[in-house]
């Protein structure tokens, strides 16, 4: 079972790596890159949800990563490859400070406070001159070319999106592995316990605040890294992209895919949510209506998402394994 799963994952990765050879349209490559970013953001939503935290500030931390990285490369002249880890770490530090105040509240307070935080961040980006105000930041440097001996150099440019695609794949894989490591280790079982019964977890000696903060900080750091990638891929940032509206979309990706599958759910969900409206040729103005209806239908009829459906179909062989183990 384990070996089979492992082989499946390897096959999927190989297919994803060969995809640019088949998909010639750069627009589709662009969509796939966005799928990767959105999927990882949705993973951070599930991570926090596991501990009972519903964050409406995911896009805000994504934005903090993006703006930090843009400023570091543009104003401080830091090489882009160093901007990625630096932006992630700075986002993580912001998350520790913000989280120390917000996580303590938990529950509804946390939802409203992260919502407020989401709006405040957009306002800060849009108001202060350092962040470029409403027009945002333009001409953000692209990653420096990678020189490979005897082969040549890999250029990151507007024309060829393929190098970005591979960078995205690498980041998604890295984040998947990192999150899986936490899920399968002691932290994962503590988070799971808190999510299932906070009182009982506390009575067994699990520090609610510490583990919620850990989830919050990891989620924000991961979002920050993806933000940094987004900044150097999109090369221009506007504040409005990082508002709570974006976070709602992130929630939908996760819920559509299935919140019981912390890795595969977000990937499936964001894949569908990115490509289906594209194929239906839904115009931008109508798209939120489509999404709104989808949210309502999902919560009414498919609360465990699409992957929950496959489990229902497989029968009730070992129900506790899928509910309990966060399977990648």
């Amino acid at each position: 079972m384990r070996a089979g799963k492992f082989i499946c994952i390897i096959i999927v990765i190989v297919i994803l790596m060969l995809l640019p050879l088949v998909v010639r349209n750069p627009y589709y490559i662009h969509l796939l890159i966005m799928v990767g970013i959105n999927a990882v953001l949705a993973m951070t939503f599930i991570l926090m949800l596991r501990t009972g935290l519903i964050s409406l500030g995911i896009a805000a931390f994504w934005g903090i990563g993006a703006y930090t990285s843009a400023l570091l490369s543009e104003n401080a002249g830091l090489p882009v490859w160093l901007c990625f880890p630096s932006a992630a770490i700075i986002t993580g530090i912001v998350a520790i400070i913000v989280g120390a105040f917000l996580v303590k509240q938990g529950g509804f307070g946390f939802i409203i406070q992260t919502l407020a935080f989401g709006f405040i961040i957009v306002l800060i980006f849009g108001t202060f001159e350092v962040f470029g105000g409403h027009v945002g930041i333009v001409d953000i440097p692209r990653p420096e070319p990678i020189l490979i001996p005897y082969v040549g150099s890999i250029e990151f440019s507007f024309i060829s999106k393929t190098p970005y695609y591979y960078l995205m794949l690498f980041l998604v894989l890295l984040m998947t592995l990192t999150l899986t490591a936490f899920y399968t280790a002691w932290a994962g079982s503590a988070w799971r316990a808190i999510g299932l019964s906070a009182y009982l977890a506390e009575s067994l000696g699990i520090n609610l605040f510490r583990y919620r903060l850990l989830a919050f900080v990891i989620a924000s750091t991961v979002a920050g890294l993806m933000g940094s990638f987004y900044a150097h891929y999109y090369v221009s940032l506007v504040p409005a992209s990082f508002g709570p509206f974006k976070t709602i979309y992130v929630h939908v990706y996760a819920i559509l895919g299935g919140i019981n599958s912390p890795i595969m759910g977000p990937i499936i969900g964001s894949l569908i949510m990115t490509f289906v409206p594209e194929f239906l040729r839904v115009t931008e103005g109508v798209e939120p209506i489509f999404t709104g209806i989808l949210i309502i239908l999902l919560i009414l009829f498919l609360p465990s998402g699409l992957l929950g459906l496959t489990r229902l179909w497989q029968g009730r062989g070992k129900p506790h394994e899928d509910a309990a183990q966060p399977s990648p």
Partner: protein
Amino acid sequence: MLEVKRLSKYFGGLAAVNELDLKVDQSEILGLIGPNGAGKTTFFNMVSGFFPPTSGQVFFKDRDISRFKAHDIAQLGIGRTFQSSTLFMKLSVLDNVLTGYHMSYRTGFLKRILHSPSARKEERRFREKALEILEFMGIGSLRNELAANLPHGYQRILGISMALATDPKLLLLDEPATGMNANETRTLISLIRQIQNRGITIILVEHDMKAVMDLSDRIVVLNFGKKIAEGLPSEIKENREVIEAYLGKEEEAPLDAA
């Protein structure tokens, strides 16, 4: 072992626990009884750190723990069970107990994240210990069952097993025999005795009078948040005030009937 001084808890104007003084000695079983709403569970919630007391102090091993958080108190060695079957319902019996080893990890953060050999070894050791507890409690064969699928009686037993996994010095049992038939209660009584024989001090809140009288070395009776009697089981049985509290005044029935 545990000493409580003038402990009070007010919910609004209502005193759930009122100026309670209480002492529990090493390795004894203290029965805590009283009519519904007498403040027994509130008392547990204060000792285990879930409610901060309005006033008064809780001393555990001569240390004032009145303001400690629940997880800190668990780490000091006070375990508890809950009145309703509070379990991780979606997890297997074994995983429920394994969660109780959460604070026993000794390997470092990075080693645990990377699943290093020493971290794996530690996990295996906890697994063995958890299985030992399940065997001891007589539910070893149910280890892979979902907690939600257990009969009610076994769920109570699982709750105690989880508390035992935290290696408590003092165990607070909140109505462990609820929903058990006579047979199951008898098993439970012998289990609680064996837990006591392992050197664990126990405070027992229970409505099943036979179980309380059988098990307790001493009994404290609460009514409206106040202590109305304290003594050996045989003394409590004869205590007028206790009988009145349970059965109302001018009632001459013995307490065993309750």
